[in-house]
């Protein structure tokens, strides 16, 4: 049997493994959401948290660019309303209040292929991953050189290595890929993983993740 880690659970798992994660605190009530936003600082993002929802954006379960308390209250109510129109309330775990990510969005994924065994993917991230199809694969484990070439494989690397930008540190992606490779090597129970998006600027932070573990 497999175990699926989503939302907070997945982020906590990664945080425990030493990965940089956008600051995220779950709120069970509007009041808690306000306190969380206060601690994190605006702008924040709200996300529905439920085992029932794998692709949050598809069901309208994400609100971005929330800049103040009023916006937060409205977004909170809208998310709950949206959720209960499709699912039983008992499946609602809460709403995640999250620090806003900055920079370019990447996806880093892991998959256990029937022929090749564990593979790692780097791609142009966000919700349009499949449509953009700007991805690169390698067999795990990978070395530093592989990580660098994976970045070069992507069309978006033209932006990364352009002389016009000094906002994004590509080296961080290299180190991040190696870290993921090490995690899977150490932890063979990880069968599939989407870290998406991962925000890259002068720092690198995981915004959302889902992980499938074999148990």
């Amino acid at each position: 049997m497999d175990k699926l880690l989503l939302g907070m659970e997945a982020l906590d798992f990664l945080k425990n493994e030493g990965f940089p994660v956008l600051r995220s605190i779950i709120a069970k009530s509007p009041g808690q959401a306000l306190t969380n936003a206060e601690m994190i600082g605006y702008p924040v993002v709200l996300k529905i948290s439920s085992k029932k929802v794998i692709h949050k954006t598809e069901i309208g379960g994400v609100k971005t660019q929330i800049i103040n308390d009023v916006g937060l209250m409205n977004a909170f109510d809208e998310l709950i309303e949206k959720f209960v129109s499709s699912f039983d309330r008992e499946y609602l775990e809460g709403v995640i209040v999250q620090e806003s990510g900055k920079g370019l969005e990447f996806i880093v994924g892991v998959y256990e292929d029937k022929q090749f065994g564990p593979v790692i993917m780097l791609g142009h991230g966000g919700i349009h991953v499949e449509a953009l199809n700007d991805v690169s694969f390698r067999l795990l484990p990978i070395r530093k050189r592989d990580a660098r070439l994976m970045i070069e494989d992507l069309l978006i690397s033209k932006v990364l290595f352009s002389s016009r930008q000094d906002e994004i540190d590509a080296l961080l992606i290299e180190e991040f890929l190696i870290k993921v490779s090490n995690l899977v090597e150490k932890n063979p129970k990880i069968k599939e993983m989407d870290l998406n998006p991962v925000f890259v600027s002068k720092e690198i932070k995981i915004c959302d993740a889902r992980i499938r573990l074999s148990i």
Partner: protein
Amino acid sequence: MFEGKLRKLFTPHSVAVIGASENFEKLGYHVMKSLIKGGYKGAVYPVNPNSKTLWGKEAYSSVSNIKGQVDLAIIVVPTERVPKVLEECGKKQVNGAVIITAGYRETEKDEGKLLEDEIRRISERFEIPIIGPNTFGFVNITDCVNASFTYEFSLIKKGGVTLISQSGGFCHLIGFLAIEERVGMAKLMSLGNRVNIDFPEAVKYFLDEDRETRVIVLYIEGIDVPRRLFETIERAKNKKPIIAYKSGRNEKGDAASKFHTGSLAGNYRIWKGAFRQWGILEVQDSEDLIDTAKALDSCEPLMGSRIAVLSGQAGPGIIAADILEKEGLSLSKFSDQTQKKINEILPPLAIRTNPVDMGPAWHSPQRIISLLNVVSEDENTDGILFLNMFASANISLVSELEKTLRDNEPFKKPIIACLNAPSGVWDEEINKIDGEKGFCVIRTPERAARTMANLHRVSRMME
């Protein structure tokens, strides 16, 4: 796994052809023809219980009746008889086998699979390395061992390119292109049903043990455990360039996966990544494959991305320059000293900077060759495209080039040339210079430029 046995299989001192024949309709006829007409120097033992002599040689009723040692058995008997024959080979301590006979796992019939299992068991019991079944065989060009049913492979010139193919048809395609394009080859083989010699075994042998092999070409349709192939290549130590052509490109990911990664993990995407990971150059068609293999075998490595284009006529030079830039290479900027020398050779009637229009000197082979020599010494140039179309007045260009090359030291940078003329005009001279002294002839300016770009990719990957 088969220590020492593969070397003997590919360079046998004695070959038994089981199922040898003098009947043109039988494969056993063609295998005998390939060996004998192909110039094989070792002992050939035809095996066929119905004949006393075959092809002027004593024929044997069974492999067990042969007195001497048999290094290689080529088996072309009917499908059902192969296990029995192989068993006899095992008892006779035959070193290795090629099973050309088909009708096994590749068929829809269950008997085929059962017979192949039997072949596998026998090969394990006697530890016999087997190429096939269901293969056209292999050809060792280096040592004139044509262990296939197509004699014409023996017309390929000797060189350093080795093809390991999952398809016999592809070997025929590439083998005949190699003859046409004067590509020197070391070995070519089709793995067939891969009963115990699969890509990893073959690649390891040609990387580590076969000295004549300098470039390895793989044609892959699909294999069960691709990781095993990649893990035989020690990337950090490998000095032989590997080129791969992958067909059967399945882009579909895992439809059952709810993850982005799983749904994007199409088989071909992973192959592409793995090729990059192990420093294998992937090519997209047969021409790209043959050109790149040829240049890798005959030229020095390209150590940078700055290319000079020397063209007898402006047009082909511009075409080549366009492609070079599109493929990520750049046109070199000659040093002052080089430019001065060029200006001494060429009158100011055409463009004397890169791409150089050698037009004003086109009727003078000496000046064209001087330009090539001068630019080959330029410190700002890593490789040269040397493009010359025939016209009546430059008919002596290639023979002069041949004389120069004969006297010169080999070029230290890759020189890729186009020498286009009506057939019969320059062919003889081109035959003498192509692949010599780091000079390689490619069919068109576009293909020459793309080949240069591939040399660059290979150098970068092998850093």
